[in-house]
């Protein structure tokens, strides 16, 4: 028995004293990888670059940057329709220019834009620390990332103006970025930062324009960005830089790399990667990119605009959500013979498979679904109700279909055309005119006419002259050519017509300049005490 007791004592001692030795608390990782274990091979290093380009798809998401560029303008509206699309009044506020710093899309835009900035900073830092990375690759990736960072700041400059400049990832602990206490000075500083970053890196990124650089920030994309930066220099810094805009536009135009596609819609078809006009596009794939509703390609091109029965109209798997449409005044501003107008759908809609008439299903059920240009009651035009952005009916408004709707899998394969030659041509024309006190030069006229000519059948084409091409005409030309491509707000601001501009439904003659930039989103103000809110908000 004594022997047994001794054995027990020994066992007890083993249990008691062996157990505490099990005190290791390292995490075992299975389906992810520690940063320190990655970036060992060339493939792994290249994989690190991918998220920066993934961020571009977030950047242009409808529920963010793209909305900020369009729903507050004279082109596109997302009206409340019956019980749909009130959504906290956010879209009405965009249309009315009564947004507050709490509107979620502002925060989404800010987050996506700074995400690109920050991701670029992080990768630049990370690549700089890799000693096993090919030196040439390191240099070109770093330059590419600095240009991408500039793209993020370009949008921030446009939307929010005076934002913190953060050019590095290895900031001290507890660092909180601060913007300039003075809005004007701050915005100028951001402009200068973007400018110098682009200038010093544009020659380090690839000059190729082929499938190896498609979707990448190559030299031509950087030139386009510089052109768009300089054209806005006067608004953003108070100092015009028309010549610089012309210089970089010319680099693109003169390169011979890009032509206006003979067919306007070739830039927007589902396989638009073959467009010779698109300078910089964000590539999409119906299976690999974008998951469902929140992603850019399903929302803008298709779901938001089309009626709930859109799946039947186009013979595609997902329904629309009957949201955005053209402002009647935008639609009516076109020459009816303008080919580009076909990107706005009007009239009776039919089931693609059966040819049957499609009916309304909501507040106007069961009327035939006939998209109207104007916001009028088709059944009783004199019902005494004023229909506008607050109480539209499901059939009202022309619907966006510039991008070919060929939805499969998780979305559409059409690539997002961010920079197009047509835009650059019009920008160069604009710079020439503005240099010339707003009066068209023949070069400017020729540039605009290039773009304009494509939009008409030869018999319908009426060229502009130095007499008919006014700045106001150019603003219209830009709208007709670039509708719903995300640039309208920027253009209107440049023309001084974003605030106090009056168009259908909205008379804002008493509006203040405050609304020329958006407020810094409230969640950002809440989470960073170093931020100073934009003036007037």
């Amino acid at each position, binding site marked *: 028995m004594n022997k*047994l007791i001794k054995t027990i004592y020994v066992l007890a001692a083993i249990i008691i004293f062996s157990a505490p030795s099990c005190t290791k608390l390292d995490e075992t990782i299975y389906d992810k990888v520690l940063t320190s274990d990655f970036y060992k091979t060339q493939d792994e290093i290249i994989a690190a670059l991918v998220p920066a380009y993934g961020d571009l798809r977030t950047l242009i998401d409808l529920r963010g940057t793209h909305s900020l560029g369009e729903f507050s303008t004279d082109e596109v509206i997302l009206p409340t329709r019956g019980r749909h699309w009130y959504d906290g009044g956010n879209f009405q506020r965009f249309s009315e220019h009564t947004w507050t710093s709490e509107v979620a899309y502002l925060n989404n835009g800010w987050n996506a834009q700074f995400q690109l900035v920050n991701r670029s900073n992080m990768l630049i830092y990370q690549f700089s620390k890799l000693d096993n990375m090919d030196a040439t690759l390191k240099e070109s990736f770093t330059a590419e990332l600095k240009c991408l960072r500039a793209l993020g700041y370009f949008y921030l400059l446009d939307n929010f103006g005076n934002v913190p400049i953060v050019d590095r990832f290895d900031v001290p602990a507890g660092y909180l970025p601060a913007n300039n206490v003075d809005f004007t000075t701050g915005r100028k500083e951001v402009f200068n930062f973007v400018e110098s970053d682009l200038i010093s890196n544009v020659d380090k990124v690839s000059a190729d324009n082929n499938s190896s650089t498609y979707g990448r920030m190559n030299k031509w994309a950087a030139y386009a960005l510089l052109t768009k930066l300089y054209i806005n220099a006067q608004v953003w810094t108070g100092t015009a830089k028309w010549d610089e805009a012309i210089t970089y536009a010319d680099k693109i135009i003169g390169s011979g790399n890009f032509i206006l596609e003979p067919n306007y819609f070739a830039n927007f078809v589902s396989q638009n990667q073959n467009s010779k006009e698109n300078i910089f596009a964000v590539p999409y794939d119906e299976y690999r990119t974008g998951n469902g509703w929140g992603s850019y390609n399903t929302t803008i091109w298709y779901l938001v605009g089309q009626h709930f029965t859109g799946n039947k109209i186009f013979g595609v798997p997902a329904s629309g959500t*009957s949201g955005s449409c053209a402002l009647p005044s935008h639609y009516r501003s076109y020459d009816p013979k303008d080919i580009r107008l076909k990107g706005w759908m009007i009239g009776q809609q039919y089931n693609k498979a059966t040819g049957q008439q499609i009916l309304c299903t*909501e507040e106007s059920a069961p009327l035939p679904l006939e998209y109207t240009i104007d916001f009028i009651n088709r059944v009783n035009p004199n019902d005494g109700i004023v229909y506008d952005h607050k109480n539209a009916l499901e059939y009202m408004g022309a619907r966006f279909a510039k991008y070919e709707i060929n939805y499969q899998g998780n979305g559409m394969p059409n690539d997002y055309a961010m920079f197009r030659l047509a835009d650059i041509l019009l920008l160069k024309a604009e710079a020439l005119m503005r240099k010339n006190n707003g009066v068209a030069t023949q070069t400017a006229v020729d540039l605009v006419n290039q773009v304009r000519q494509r939009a008409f059948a030869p018999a319908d084409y009426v060229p502009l002259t130095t007499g008919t091409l006014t700045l106001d005409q150019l603003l219209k030309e830009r709208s007709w050519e670039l509708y719903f491509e995300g640039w309208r707000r920027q253009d209107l601001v440049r023309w001084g017509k974003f605030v106090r501009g009056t168009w259908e439904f909205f008379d804002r003659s008493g509006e203040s300049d405050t609304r020329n930039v958006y407020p810094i989103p409230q969640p950002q103000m809440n989470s960073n005490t170093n931020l100073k809110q934009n003036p007037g908000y």
Partner: protein
Amino acid sequence: MKKNFDSWVYSHPALKKLIMELKIAFFIIVISVSNVFATPTYSQVAKVSLNMENKSLEQVMDEIESQSEFYFIFNQKQIDVNRVVNIQEDNKLITDILPELFKGTNVNYTVLDRKILLTTDPLENNLLATASVTEPQQNRITGTATDKNGAPVPGANVVVTGTTQGVITDFDGKYSINVTPGSKSLTFSFIGMVPQEIAIGTLTQINVTMAESAIGLDEVVVVGYGTQRREEVTSSIATVVSKDFNRGAVSQSPLQLVQGKIAGLAISRASGGDPTAGVDMQLRGVSTVRGDASPLVIIDGIPGGNMNTISPEDIASINILRDGSAAAIYGTRGNAGVVIITTKKGTAGQQVINYSSYVYTERWLNKPELVDAAGWIQMKLDFQNSSSALLNSKASSIVDYGANTDWLDEITRSPVSQVHNLSISGGSENTTYYGSVNYRDLQGFLKESSNNILNGRLTITHYGFNKRLSVQMNLSNTFSKAIPVDYNAYRQAMQRNPTLPVYNLDGTFNENAGYDTSNPVGMLLQYDREQKNNEVLASTQISYEIVSGLKLSATGALQRSDQITGYFQHRDAFAAVTAGTNGEAQRTARERLDRTFESNLSYSKLFGGVHSLNVMAGYSYQDFTDEAFGARNRDFITNFFSFNNLGAGLQLPDGKYNTDDVYSNKQSSKLIAFYGRVNYNFDGKYLLSGSLRQEGSTRFGVNNKWGLFPAISAGWTISRESFMANVNFVDELKLRVGFGMTGNQGIGNYLSQQILGNSGVMLYNGKWIPGYAPASNPNPDLRWEKKAETNIGIDAILFNNKLNLTLDIYQRTTRDLLYQYTVPVPPNLYNTMWTNIGEMTNKGIEFSAKVSPVKTNKFVWDLDFNVSYNVNKLVSLSNDTYQTKYQNLQNIGAPGLNDTPAFRLEEGQPIGNFYGYQFAGFTPEGAWLFWNAAHDQQLTFAQVKQEDKAILGNGLPKSYMGLTNTFRYGNFDLTVFLRGVFGFQLLNTQRLFYENRVMVPVNVLTSALTSPVIADPQYSDYYIENGDFVKLDNLTLGYNVPFKGNVVKSLRFYASGQNLLAITGYKGQDPEIRINGLTPGMDYRWQYPSVKTFTLGVNVQF
């Protein structure tokens, strides 16, 4: 024992009766054993070592009592406690010691569980009273005291009421007492039994059946890593044993057994009658903002137990460690409360076979009243003739398709569910067993939904090496097959045009195009869903008593949960047709494995007769692994395979591959802890307990992995003070004060480290390549969320056990709240980060009372009442670096109210504030008017501004109440259980969306027809309603068949109704909804209907 004190008392006869009872209590100086086992027969296990020379019998008995849980019951006049004895016994059973101790005396002893009854012959001399109270003419009354099973109750006091004249019953429960003529009644009392007073009248024989007291004086309370006698507990611990469990059907969670029974424990049946769902539980308010809000469940000593592994019928007791000082020993996961579940075990020598079964059906609790087909047609006419232009314009959208369908009837059924449970238990001196089989076939009220559960359980306890060693093995296995359904079927049924038919003439489901429209019957029938679980809990616990009082225990446990799910959307399901998927099949498999090793060493000793010390220290190791994979395919040419032949789908072979069509993942975490506890008490009067746990979790930053969780508590048994000796109505009075820290680690793994995960794709040189990016903002400073809690409580037992009161007041402060903060980018990688900031408090009061207003032989009325009140406040969510003054939460949803948050989480405010416009009225046209911020101006919707929003109410209940009435009359028993929840508001989204005629062409509630709203739905306090309710939650009538058979020992039938009636002003379906999370009080439109349940059951014991 206090000899001098006793002598003094006996010279003061008035105190004798009180002393007799107090003495029993005084004798109970028991050491809590650090032992997670329930002990089958105490006297077969407990060992005592004595080495006493020339000691008085009194001292020896003291020593026995100090070493064990035994206590002696005897008559001072009969037993000579001053007799000098010599005794040497090493680790002997009490049955070996007693013959030695009383060898050669006339003392007889009987051991009954922990009671040792000492008597002398002859019986007639058993008088307490001395000759001075004996008078010439006396009537002799004799009789027997038995318990409810007919077993004799020896050692019970029989006293002439109001006098000191009394006797003690003998081994056979017999007594004989002389009473003076004119004596009115006899009082029978016994420890752990309800005292009874019986009128004498002309009776000469009085037999009494004594019922066990609901308030067992010798009740053992399960605490962290052990048990304690109830009167030694210094923390706030609530216990419900199986006989007090809620009756009737248990359809969702074992916690339903104690719903409404424990003050401070809020349990909400958040998912209506869904048999595949669980319940919401909250202890003392919201414990966290983003960490794990579910309690730590401990099953037979295994922390982190999965309640699905046990069937409700196998549960012997549920203990809730309410305050921090009780929970701190489990520290790290105790913030949301600790639930200790103890399962039933076998008893040596008693073979018991139990069979219980019940069958139940369900009906609507409140069926929403929707416009029917006739009303729909009438509504069209009304719209056409309406003076409202808006309604005129919508008349055309009200289409009559000719059918008359009650869609709510179409999706529901009268389910029949059945539960069977068979258990067998018993054993010999060294081995006991408990085995059971439980089968639950639960049919849901919504068509198709069901849950089918088979559980088997085996517990074997074995004692070896002269009872020094005990080994307990538990094996429990649950197989379940659940069919969950899509709650949106309910929403579609609510809003579907009542003139649409369910089926077309060709037998297919009638579908029509449009926004968010789908045939709800098709939504239930055209999807195959299956979730099969196999859950195992296996554990072995070994304990060895090295020397007397020193015990080493070790526990190993394995908990494994395997899950396989299947999903198939039929080819002809409306969504499949719309999406052109030709059917979609998915399978997933998941395995979770938790491994536990615990060891501890405990020592208990009584010093100097009054200093009782119990020390325990231990080590705990747990690891958790969770891995899963799944695959999905589409484009099937037949429905025939359902989800059983994924390869038959054409989409994947066609190369049309979505990034999430095939996946697998795996993660793991670890917890390691050292813990210890010291209990000290002086003479049962002053109680002190301190515990410490140091625990490390892999989840936290490298410098913050370890957290320290101390607790200290003290008790003062006031009733044992001499100044209380004259207070006759107080049986026990104890003051408790406790403080304890607990923690929360309930966040995801790997958040403190910089890890990379898949991140999108890019076109690189014309090829799509995958990317890798940091998966989140790493926070190397991530640390434990900690809660400090102070608790002050009073326990009182009054009026001869007739009234038991407990009052607790607490304040809990949670600091370093785990929260996903919005952080600036840059410098951070993502705009959210898990970090520790902020503070939240909960202050509250809990009161519970057990009363026995009537207790006679034939009729018993027991009343059990509890009420709690809690005030929550989010003190801060900011520090110098991170600021979150407020955050808007929970968009109400489409149509029209996306980006319309219903809640605001705000510093200085409680969780669950509704925030929005303040309703001010309607324009003559039926459009909305809202108040401006100053509340002096009515604004139209176009005019109202964001700044005009205000706090509209709060969805977090402040007060909970439970009232159980149990009546027993003869063989009948009746339970009436009322449960109330108070002090909260609900957002009635059902009214918001369906009590509005403008919502056509979707159907509306009949109340919409008279509603003044003629405008698109808007969120305001117009739809915020008081949620206060009282439910008749349980009504059970039972009948115990008086059986005298040899085979059947007892037989009981009962009928029960649950959730029968809700008394409330709330206009929605059921005010009992989700209470967890940051958005309590949101009554969603998609829900599982709430039901009332009708049950018939039988229990048989062989």
